[in-house]
């Protein structure tokens, strides 16, 4: 899977699920936590979505904000994880 594809899926999910608007422009580098787009409840939703979509499980030490704080951070982290699984 290409990284761009992951970025698009993550970005669409975040727009629809947290901003209720698929057409909204969201900067791929914006901090999702500091901007309040994702809160503690949202974290759970996001992680469940990624685990279900990509049929993967995150270990505890992967659940740090650095890996999830922006759309780019998420897709980078996810891309690398999926590469390693292969």
């Amino acid at each position, binding site marked *: 899977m290409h990284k761009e594809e992951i970025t698009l899926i993550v970005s669409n999910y975040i727009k*629809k*699920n947290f*901003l*209720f*608007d698929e057409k*909204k422009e969201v900067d791929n580098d914006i*901090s999702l*936590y*500091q*901007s*309040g787009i994702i*809160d*503690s*409840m*949202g*974290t*759970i939703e996001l*992680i469940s979505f990624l685990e279900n979509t990509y049929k993967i499980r995150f270990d*505890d*030490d992967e*659940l*740090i*904000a*650095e890996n*999830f*704080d922006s759309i780019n951070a998420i897709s980078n982290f996810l891309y690398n994880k999926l590469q390693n699984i292969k």
Partner: protein
Amino acid sequence: MCGIAGKIDFSDKAEPVSIEFLKNMVSTLRHRGPDEFGYYRDNNAGLVHARLSIIDITSGQQPMSNENNTLWIVFNGEIFNYLELRKILQNHNHKFKTKSDTEVILHAYEQWGLDCFTKFNGQWAIAMWDNQNKKLIFSRDHVGILPLFIKEENNTIWFASEIKAIFTDPEVKREIDIFALQQIFTFWTTITPYTTFSGIFEIKPGTTVVYSANGKKQEHIHWKLNFQDPSNTSTTKNKYSFKDAAKELEQKLLDATKLRMLRADVPVGSYLSGGLDSSVVAWMGRQTKSGTFQTFSIRFEDQQFDETRYQKMLVSMLNSNHEEILVKKRDISQVFQEVIYHTEKPILRAAPAPLFILSKLVHDSNFKAVVTGEGADEFLLGYDIFRETKIRQFMSNQPESRIRPLLLQRLYPYLTDSLFKAKGASFEFWKKNFTELNRIDYSHILRWDTTSKIINFLTDSIQMHLQDDLMELVRDILPENFLKLDPVIRAQILEIMILFSGYIISSQGDRMLMSHSVEGRFPFLDIDVINFLNHLPIDYKLIGLDEKIILKHIAKGKIPDEIINRKKQPYRAPDAASFIFDKPEDYVTEMFSEKILKDFAIFNPEKVSILYNKCLNKISNNPDGSQISNFENMSFVGILSTQLLYYMFIKNKPRYNNNINFTTKIDMVKENA
């Protein structure tokens, strides 16, 4: 307490209003005062009064006049120190024909002019009409406990306790103000003097407004929130040691409670939430009278909101006659339309609904007045936001620190079991602008930012016309020395001037109480108590992260330690979960339907549908709604209440009728004048 309304046309060729018009107007306020109705009318003015008889039941009818019938008043509220003022006025040779506080206002105005309002200890919304000088005077109490709305157009002024009375006039255009929505979807309320409706304003709290025949309008501020610069607090500290301050505060609170329990010709009950504030008020209320003592409580079926255990403790200690009502989620959606009919403002939480249900219980128990603990959290620094501000300020002293943000876990324990506890990285949210201490919104930026994302649900065409910056509105209501004050006091001022005034004591206070003809009386809002508290150093109220410490000190030995030491539970009710069931109430599905959303054209139907389905999904997994986020809850309730408001006030006209029997009729219309 009561309802007041009127219409004044200042022009020389003014036509008198019809009795029918006055009946219609007052009929919308029947819930505020079902006991008696009265009107005054001359060629320029029509005033109406709906009375809830509490003081001087036999002769306190309104409209009431001075001795020579030139000054006419309609008044909603209580002047608690009226007996003391009456004596002073009698010494100045004023003659009284009634035993009411209303008459004291008239004579006080004659004696002291507009300065009279600085002498009142009470809660009031007043309209006075001077028919000789063609002068109209409005006044509202210090913090705005009682509502008063006005509309000005050409030479005419409309006023009323509730906006619906003004809307009975076919001449008045009914329109939702989109800037009001922008404000509510940021601050939870409009900022004074704005209201939900275009062209309708409120009289600002602590303010008197005078309209003269020549079209002149003058505003006089009779009370202002006043905090000292931090450099001055040492003097107050020297004046009162903590112990002396506690002693003094206890006496002032006792006096305030006594005035509110005993200055009534009907019995006064007490609300009991199970928290510290209402427990102290109920305990003090109990001290003021022997014999029976009545208490009222809300219980929640949903355990996360319920406080029954603590209520029971207090009831057995006070040995009170206790009435309680168990609120279920379904009850909330069943009364919610009525709730919004009374708030006249969109709300972002369902929390007012149980208070609507509680005031019905009070009314059904034949009580007309209750004391409550309102105001303690604002004036004694009880809310989380004050502690949060303190922590963010502490973090800003060493922005790189990874240890300092850990304090947030003390405030928000869920952070400790968050998935992100590792590396302290979950604190990013609280770091937003946290080093910018000179922002006026420093304390509230996180809350306002999160809330303002609701604006995104509005249609594109509404969003295009919104204001870039709402901070101007905020700046306008702040004291001049605002930025010189400690960030915690600044947070307190914002909280009091915005959320407290526009939501807590109105949408969740007066409007819910008066929906069932119940008058609220609030010892913590006694003006002597407020002024005293505002001059005490912060650390008498908030030390470290321990809140309301001076009140806890007073409470010690009076109410159970368990209540004093329990972790503060914010008053809340289930939100979106109160509306989504297998078979929701018809109005809920209707208000969220694509057809109605399109028809009302306030919200974007696609976005709302995504939100609705998301909430629906979460409820089907977890009926208690615990999976629904704070933002989703606020958006859901905000959208539903806005839709209902539009439906009841714009699409339809608020209900009114002419089925009114006036018992006080003052007609001064001059034929062929």
